[in-house]
Each structure stands twice: as C-alpha cells, then as structure tokens.
C-alpha cells in the first residue's frame, strides 16, 4: 500500500510531467515553474476523478492567457472568451488530466476522470475542506501565468476500482442501427459486401 507521502510525490511528478508534455506537444512551447502563487482567478477549469484517489484537477488562467492558448490551438486570433475558448480550455485540462491519470496508473494508483467544466468570473478564490490534500504548481509560458491544482483524498482502507468503462451505455444499439443504415444506403458502386 503506497504511503501518503509517496502518493503526494507521485502526484507532484505526474502533474509537472503532464503539464510539460501537453504544453510542449500541443503548443511547441516550454512552460516554466513560476515562483509565487496567484490567488485570484478569472477562469477555472475543473475535472473530477474517482478511484484510488478522488477529487478534482483544476487549471486556472487569466482571461488573456485563456485566449492566448486557445488562439494557438486553433491558429486563430481570439481576443475575448467565446465558446471555442471554453471548449479549448476544457480540452487542455482533459489532456493534462489524462496524462496524470496514465502516469498515476503506472504507480499502482488508478482512477477515472469525468468531463471538464469551465467557470469564468473575476477574482474567484478556491476553497477546500480540511481533510483534502492539495498539490499546486504555478507555471509561466510566454508571459502568461497559469496554475494546475490537484485537490484529493486517498482511499486508503477502501480502494475503489474504477469500472471498466465508466461511461454509461448509449440508449441505441450501435450494431443494429449501423446494419439498418448500411442496408438502406448500400449502392452497387464499389460493391464488395
């Protein structure tokens, strides 16, 4: 059974590596760890997770930083938050969280992650309960500061195995629907069915 301190170190390492990998792969930029903390946030992205650990992974940005990163993703110039910015930030967090999940799984600590949520406001602050552990690292990239935070509890006595496929099944039978559509839309061109 991993000790609390070992889990914390694994999380810190997974967070740093995942952020570095995401920013360098997607944006061809190198984030650097920033000294000091930012305590007021304009944009918060959050994704929940449950399993061996449960909690939230969050990333916080300034509005300008959010627009900068999504502009780079889309090779476009976005100057004010719009639906693409919300979607893009969610995707950045998704990739960072996925990387943390993959790295933590290799240490024996598995969990599943939820879908991302993005909240925009001004001067928001984060609060957490006394029994929640926090790992937080600030980064700076092209003069934009962003924070990555993991707030978690460890299931030490009651390890929860994530379900094999945590997503609920669809209401439709994919095979059935596909067979009907293929039959309706089959034409003689390139017919090798």
């Amino acid at each position: 059974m991993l000790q609390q301190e070992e889990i914390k170190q694994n999380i810190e390492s997974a967070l740093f590596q995942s952020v570095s990998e995401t920013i360098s792969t997607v944006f061809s930029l190198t984030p650097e760890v920033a000294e000091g903390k930012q305590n007021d946030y304009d944009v918060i992205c959050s994704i929940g997770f449950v399993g061996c650990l449960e909690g939230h992974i969050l990333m916080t940005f300034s509005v300008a930083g959010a627009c900068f990163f999504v502009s780079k993703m889309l090779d476009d110039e976005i100057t004010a938050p719009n639906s693409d910015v919300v979607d893009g930030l969610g995707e950045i967090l998704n990739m960072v969280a996925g990387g943390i999940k993959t790295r933590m799984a290799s240490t024996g600590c598995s969990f599943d992650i939820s879908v991302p949520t993005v909240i925009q406001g001004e001067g928001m602050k984060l609060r957490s309960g006394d029994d929640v552990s926090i790992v937080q690292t600030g980064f700076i990239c092209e003069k934009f500061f962003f924070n990555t935070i993991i707030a978690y509890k460890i299931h030490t006595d009651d390890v929860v195995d994530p379900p094999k496929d945590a997503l609920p099944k669809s209401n439709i039978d994919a095979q059935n629907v596909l067979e009907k559509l293929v039959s309706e839309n089959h034409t003689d061109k390139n017919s090798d069915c």
Partner: protein
Amino acid sequence: MKKILVVDDSGVQRKMIIGIIKKAGFENEIMEAGDGEQAIQVLGANFQDIGLVLCDWNMPKMSGLEFIEGVAKVPPVAKIPIVMVTTEGTEDKIKQAYEAHSNLAGYVAKPFSPDQLKTAIMPILARQS
C-alpha cells in the same frame, strides 16, 4: 477520393485535427460527428465514401469504445480504418480498444503533435490514393 470522418465531442479538438490534416496537404473531404451516436448515423449513411475514421473515446451519449464495438460487428463498415485519438493512454484502455475492434488501424494518445497524427494517418490515406 475517400472522405475522413472526425468524431470528437470537442469542437476545438475537431478543428485542430482538421487543421492538421489540411496543412499536411490532404484534400479529402472531412465529415464531423460530436458523439458516437452521431458518428453511427454519419458512418451508416456514407460508409461507401468514408476511407478513415478518427475517433475520440470519452464522449456523451455514446463513447468511442461503444462506437467501435458496434462498427466491428457490421462487416461492410468493419473494414473502414479507424484510428482512436484519445487521452486514454493506459495499457488497459489500449487493450480494451483492440479487444473491441481487433482491426483498429491505430491509436494516437492525446496530447499529440501534428507530426504524430500525420504519421498515424499517412500510410492509410496513401494506400487509398
């Protein structure tokens, strides 16, 4: 020239993937779907024209896993190359995907660079041209 179907619930992710495909010089027409259910409809209606599917895993309504499981059971569409493009990068998940569709044409873990995506799709599109 066959079409490419991009399946991802993120509009930004679809735009990024399409941008990479276009910048790489591929002129295939691109179709899009925002979840597995939509992908079933698009694929079923256009299966003879689609030469490649790029598919995310975690999507609302129907996951990418459920989508490829269904596709694998219908012979005329089962042979269309599908490349998973997903944040699910653990060995367990990769194994799960290949068990769901034994002829999966590739697996690209997010985050990916433009070159990584191009490497995965170029051989497939080259065979078709």
